[in-house]
């Protein structure tokens, strides 16, 4: 009895999660006439009707959106990893004055909700002449990151300092130690940061919406958002576009499940 209740609750929850997505998938394969005449729960007549996807792909300039997202993602991730590991190296391997103060600065900044400060951040990005260039999103994705530095510090502390000392005996400089010893050993932490940060950037809406107004700079989120106005009456096209945006997430999740769970847990609790 208790067991049955448990499985029933799990199945109901799964249905609540999946049904909203499945009906959108149905709609994405329907023709306009079919969409108007059939109910939302009716599967499409043909699963081979990809016209809506083609329309969404070309009209929404989704290729451009994916390209812009990829460029911003690649630069921001590389930058975050370099800047974060360098900072973590300083924090865990050097003794210096004001170390606690620096840590405190990072800590307090983590409490400031990013959306609230955009009023003032916008003026700074504007004064740098970065508004409406990919640079704006890139510097903000680099600059808003505190959690990654934490993950790096935690991981670096698990690397025995005796490794550093041995290398120093051999005459290696501090930077050589960072590049040849620490960085290669940091791979698991780098993977974690790349995953959580990558998902966050792919899904980010506010920053590109605010800073990348030009249609030529559309990222995935803003390209999809632009569909709201002109295609308001054509749900089958919007549905297809929504599915195009969701698909990479599904694939990535199926491939990297275990890493994603670990990354998300590490990111939220640190």
């Amino acid at each position, binding site marked *: 009895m208790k067991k049955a209740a448990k499985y029933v609750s799990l199945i109901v929850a799964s249905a609540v999660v999946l049904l909203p997505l499945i009906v959108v998938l149905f709609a994405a394969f329907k023709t306009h006439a079919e969409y108007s005449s059939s109910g939302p729960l009716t599967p499409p007549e043909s699963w081979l009707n990809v016209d809506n996807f083609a329309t969404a792909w070309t009209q929404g300039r989704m290729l451009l959106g994916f390209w812009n997202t990829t460029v911003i993602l690649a630069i921001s991730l590389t930058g975050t990893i370099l800047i974060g590991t*360098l900072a973590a190296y300083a924090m865990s391997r050097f003794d210096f004055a004001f170390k606690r103060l620096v840590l405190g600065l990072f800590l307090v900044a983590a409490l400031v*909700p990013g959306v609230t400060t955009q009023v003032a951040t916008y003026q700074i990005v504007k004064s740098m002449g970065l508004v409406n260039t990919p640079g704006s999103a890139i510097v903000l994705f680099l*600059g808003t990151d505190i959690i990654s530095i934490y993950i790096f510090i935690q991981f670096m502390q698990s690397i025995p300092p005796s490794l550093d000392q041995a290398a120093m005996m051999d005459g290696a400089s501090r930077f050589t130690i960072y590049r040849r010893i620490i960085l290669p050993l940091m791979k698991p932490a780098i993977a974690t940061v790349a995953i959580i940060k990558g998902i966050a950037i792919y899904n980010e809406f506010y920053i590109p919406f605010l800073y990348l107004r030009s249609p030529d700079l559309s990222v995935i989120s803003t390209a999809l958002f632009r569909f709201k106005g002109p295609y308001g009456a054509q749900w089958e096209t919007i549905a297809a576009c929504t599915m195009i945006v969701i698909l990479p997430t599904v694939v990535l999740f199926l491939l990297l499940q275990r890493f994603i769970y670990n990354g998300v847990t590490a990111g939220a609790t640190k």
Partner: protein
Amino acid sequence: MTRRYAAWLYLAPALALLITFTYVPVANMVVYSFTSWDGLDVTMDPVGLDNYVRVFTDERYWRVFLISGYYFVASFAQIAIALYFAVILSFNTRFRNLFKGILFFPYLLNGVAVGFVFLYLFQPDGTLDTVLRWAGLGDQTHYWLGDPDIANISLAGTSVWRFTGLSFVLFLGAIQSIPGEIYEAAEIDGAGDWHKFRHIIVPGIRRIISLSFILAISGSLSVFEIPFIMTGGANGTRTFVVQAYETAFQFRQIGLASAMAVVLLLIVLLITWIQRRLVPDEEVTLS
């Protein structure tokens, strides 16, 4: 001597970004909040506390705080649902990984995509209405997003759908880090499921639950994406951040918007401080 300054060299890029894009904006924001600046003028006219007075007395501005209430209440539902599923999935369950994946997955989805999925779901004669009719609840259909009495509940529901997976995975992780021998010992002592939940699981995940409440409070005060994408703030769904966005970027009242942001920031910092007092964190240690 060089050694002493070496650390700052490694820290420089991170610190420069931190100061430029977090601390300088916060400081500027405080300055703007006492002016009537429009973001373009060369001069900023000081207006004293006018902006703050307006945030607390003009209904259009303080009303948005009340909207957070919907999301705050919803986040209790979210934590309860997440906790329930984390507990049942931490015991032996068939298709455990499949259910775990399904429950978690919405959290990974793009916010705009989630907004569109639910716009579609809530349409008049859309999926939700169809399902209700099918279940014999046809008289319960509404204009889910058009009716100001319901719209915020629909949006808060969307938020629960989107974020329950995160709380769930955090709880599940915490429960699984409780050593198995403790359960075995409790079983030998004849503890039932409720006892195991109350006396082993709850204390074991206390820290993560308190963290979730903090995230719930600051999260419900800074809701932006879901109402902005789905209703654009229409029908009484304008949240604090949506209002601040419009004030700053559509009406160019940077001073007023800054005052709103300062108020929000102070509330979040205050709540975090209270939480730290109530549930002391394991000290973050450095070397």
